[in-house]
């Protein structure tokens, strides 16, 4: 998938918002931020084996005075559920950006069960959910989430709708 302007905007907003650690399980929608995190001396990139590690990593970063963000795909939210208890118990500021699968024009039915429940699972675990579906919304919504997390100390997820990412080409040319 071609990288789009909203991907750069999302990363720039994180950088301007003081985020200095980016923990991630890759997804195409996060490709720009991940590449920039790896190449930027200002940002520490942390590649995870599973998303739940990322909840601990960003909490540890905050404990040590750094702002961090967790990037993942919607399926990863299911992997994190018990780990989210760390956020509620300690009231850690928390910011995650989640690219959606299993919704708009999805080809792979295996993405659907978690995709349909991603927002519900986050809300059940006490995380506020913002959502962006149009490219021109992304920068503003991510910026709002940065404020909610690091100024108000909230636990916040930004869902980046599958329509943003576009149709994945599976067959033929």
């Amino acid at each position: 998938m071609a990288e789009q302007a909203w991907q750069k905007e999302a990363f720039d907003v994180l950088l301007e918002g003081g985020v200095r650690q980016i923990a991630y399980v890759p997804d195409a929608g996060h490709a720009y931020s991940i590449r920039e995190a790896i190449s930027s001396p200002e940002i520490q990139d942390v590649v995870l084996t599973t998303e739940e590690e990322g909840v601990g990593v960003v909490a540890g970063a905050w404990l040590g005075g750094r702002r961090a963000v967790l990037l993942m795909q919607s399926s990863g939210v299911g992997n994190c559920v018990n780990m989210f208890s760390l956020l509620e118990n300690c009231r850690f500021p928390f910011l995650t950006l989640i690219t959606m699968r299993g919704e708009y024009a999805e080809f792979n039915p295996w993405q659907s069960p978690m995709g349909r429940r991603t927002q519900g699972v986050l809300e059940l675990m006490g995380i506020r959910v913002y959502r962006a579906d149009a490219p021109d919304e992304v920068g503003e919504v991510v910026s709002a989430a940065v404020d909610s997390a690091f100024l108000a100390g909230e636990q916040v997820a930004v869902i980046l709708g599958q329509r943003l990412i576009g149709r994945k080409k599976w067959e033929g040319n």
Partner: protein
Amino acid sequence: MSNAVTERRIERRRFVADLLAGVPDALVVTGLGSPSYDVFAAGDRDENFYLWGAMGAAVPVGLGLALAQPDRSVVVVTGDGEQLMGIGSLGTVGACEPANLTVVVLDNGHFGETGMQRSHTSLGTDLAAVARGFGIADSFRVENHDGVTGVIERIRARSGPAFAQVLISAEEPPRVLPPRDGVFVKNRFRAALGLAPF
């Protein structure tokens, strides 16, 4: 390769007390259950972050902290069961290679908190070999109490990451309970680093 554990004899409380006495400036993260009790029994400190849940989070929290505080020694003290649940995080440590992070696993080969059922480290898993395989080159086994000196030296040196598998006996010393209020523990830890609450 056969590198089976033949004997576990280190006294956990004495080991942890001597370890922490040797690194008074270290930032300490503890895995849930007995390791939290051991660290608390050695003396409560503002620079201790005790987990009471989020099983598997001890190393990830220690990693995020170590990256945020590169000039401080960070020590994770956890058990074999907690480490096994977060085993992939050793690969994440191996990838990031934080020089100031030392992971100390108190390995009694059992799930102590739930009735002393045998864990994988009694049934074939060689934790130090796993950690080495994940890229933490300085991964080693501690088989007797005197080995505490080598762990202290590594924590002080900050030339890691390092991973110590400490073979403790499956005794169950009396429980001593650290604070369970996570907000309190977090905020006093941050205050000790000169950081505002939140």
